[in-house]
């Protein structure tokens, strides 16, 4: 069964009314994956046996007349940088070969606690470093709308799995746009919550001051539902925020009054694709039609965001990835010739090109003589970017931009030019640097049939407002 035409709450009510059995639906999902994933290649690992076992367990609960949980029997896919007990976590890297976590990430555990069934682990750029999913050490994922194009990244497998109807929900992680940009390229909804909203226990760290987990789905409503399940304090993550989680679904359809949306003038960059610009301008008109007040705002340090990001993220990555040294995880090379040699040989063989490039850049930015000029300066520019948003949020409630300056690019187009790949994140990066929640919503397609996404950003912990405004747009636009 393809999941393109059904939503999570509809599916659960069909189960509850015994119109569909969970086992037949989950079996159907794997048939669909068999048919579709040979082209899309979204999954690294499938969890067929355990998924069917869980499906049978829910079916017997239904037979006994039990009331189902919010996501009972709903198929979900998990980006393969999150731990699921007894299933390999690869991070798209050779260096973790053979690693099987003995525990489950909190976000995944909470979804499973609400009844969701994990169908598989999805492909990603190695250690979430990339914008196209081409940096996976195993294979590139393709955009379900056109197999010659990338799905975006780094959570490209998760976005593609939902877009192709191989899963209803997926989890991704977003450090500089890794949920929102693939959501935009694949024509689905993707949200990065406020920094600290979702526990990162069991998420493999890339850049710890930026990383955040969030969901993909076909609709804003489903994202809101998943978010109200996965958000919230977790004693296992010292950066998890102890802030109350509102039931995001409750008022999502209710109209909003006097909401001001700021459109930053700095986002109209010369490199923006004219079709993206046109759809974004249409999207602004949709909000005007809904009674929102649109105002031009200025975020003056936008131009410096990519530079600040690639110093901060790579510096943190160079530290986080120091643990992959052949002692604790997966691959080990050169163990016979001494410790230092083993470290270097293991890392040379285990890491792919982009990961090495980022470790080198981050190490350089942190090294003696360059720390002040690069890393410290980037941290100061980060303060200015945060201040830009704080100033903006004194006048507006939300900020509205395209998600990416272009639609999906061709496979291979940017792989040998890392700088041009980095610049494809230009609209999503500021949100991570400022720790804000951001959502990408589909806003039509270009003439070639590739999806275009628009992005709403909210102030810290304002997910409820963000989701409501996104939901209104989705209703009005479709």
């Amino acid at each position, binding site marked *: 069964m393809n999941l393109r035409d059904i939503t999570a709450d509809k599916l659960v009510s069909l189960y509850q009314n015994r119109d569909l059995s969970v086992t037949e639906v989950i079996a159907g999902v794997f048939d669909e994956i068999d048919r579709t994933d040979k082209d899309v290649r979204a999954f690294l690992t499938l969890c067929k046996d355990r998924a069917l076992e869980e499906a049978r367990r829910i079916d017997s609960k239904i037979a006994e007349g039990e009331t189902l949980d919010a996501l009972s029997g709903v198929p979900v896919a998990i980006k393969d940088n999150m731990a699921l007990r*007894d299933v390999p976590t690869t991070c798209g890297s050779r260096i973790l070969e053979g690693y*099987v976590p*003995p*525990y489950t990430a909190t976000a995944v555990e909470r979804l499973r606690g609400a009844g969701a069934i994990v169908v598989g682990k999805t492909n990603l750029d190695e250690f979430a470093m990339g914008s196209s999913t081409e940096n996976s050490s195993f294979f590139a994922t393709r955009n379900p709308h056109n197999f010659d194009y990338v799905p975006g990244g780094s959570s490209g497998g998760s976005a593609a799995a939902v877009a192709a109807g191989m899963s209803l929900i997926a989890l991704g992680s977003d450090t500089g746009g890794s949920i929102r940009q693939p959501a935009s390229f694949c024509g689905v909804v993707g949200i990065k919550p*406020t*920094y*600290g909203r979702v526990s990162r226990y069991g998420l493999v760290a890339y850049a710890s*001051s930026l990383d955040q987990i969030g969901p993909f789905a076909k609709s804003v409503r489903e994202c809101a539902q998943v978010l109200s399940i996965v958000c919230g*304090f*977790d*004693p*296992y*993550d*010292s*950066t*998890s*925020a*102890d802030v109350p989680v509102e039931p995001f679904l409750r008022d999502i359809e209710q109209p909003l009054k006097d909401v001001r949306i700021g459109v930053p003038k700095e986002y109209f960059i010369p490199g923006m694709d004219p079709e993206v610009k046109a759809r974004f301008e249409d999207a602004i008109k949709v909000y005007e039609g809904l009674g929102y007040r649109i105002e031009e705002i200025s975020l003056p*340090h936008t*131009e*410096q965001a990519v*530079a*600040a990001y*690639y110093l901060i993220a790579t510096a943190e990555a*160079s530290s986080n990835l*120091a643990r992959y*040294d*052949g*002692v604790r995880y997966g691959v*080990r090379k050169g163990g016979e010739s*001494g*410790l*230092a040699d083993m470290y*270097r*040989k293991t*890392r*040379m063989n285990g*890491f792919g090109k982009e990961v*090495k*490039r980022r*470790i*080198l*850049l981050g*190490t*350089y930015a942190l*090294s003696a003589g360059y720390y002040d000029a*690069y890393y*410290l*300066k*980037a*941290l*100061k*520019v*980060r*303060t*200015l970017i*945060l201040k830009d948003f704080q100033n903006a949020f004194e006048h507006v409630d939300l900020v509205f931009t395209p998600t990416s300056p272009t639609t999906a690019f061709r496979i291979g187009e940017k792989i040998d030019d*890392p*700088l041009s790949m980095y610049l494809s994140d230009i609209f999503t990066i500021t949100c991570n*640097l400022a720790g804000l929640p951001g959502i990408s919503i589909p806003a039509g397609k270009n003439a070639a049939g590739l999806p275009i996404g628009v992005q709403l950003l909210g102030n810290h912990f304002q997910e409820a407002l963000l989701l409501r405004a996104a939901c209104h747009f989705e209703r009005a636009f479709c």
Partner: protein
Amino acid sequence: MKITEADVEYVAKLANLEVADDEKKELAGQLSSIVEYVEQLNKVDVSSVAPTTQILETVKHAVRDDRVAARTGTADAGKTVKYFKVPKVITER
């Protein structure tokens, strides 16, 4: 600032990475263009700006009582492997 092949070699050593000779030239070129790009930060006056290392300092982050409360016991860890074999990490001078 131009990154030379010698710089690549030096930074690789700091990062415990080994870079093949044919990779050094390519990396030096790519890192040079990235470093030249990030040097646009020099255009910004940050003389009176404090650095941001954590975005939400107002939020009370998670702390728990200092009691042993393992979510994953050693018995669970041992399910995937029978024993942990590590290479010799202490060497004689």
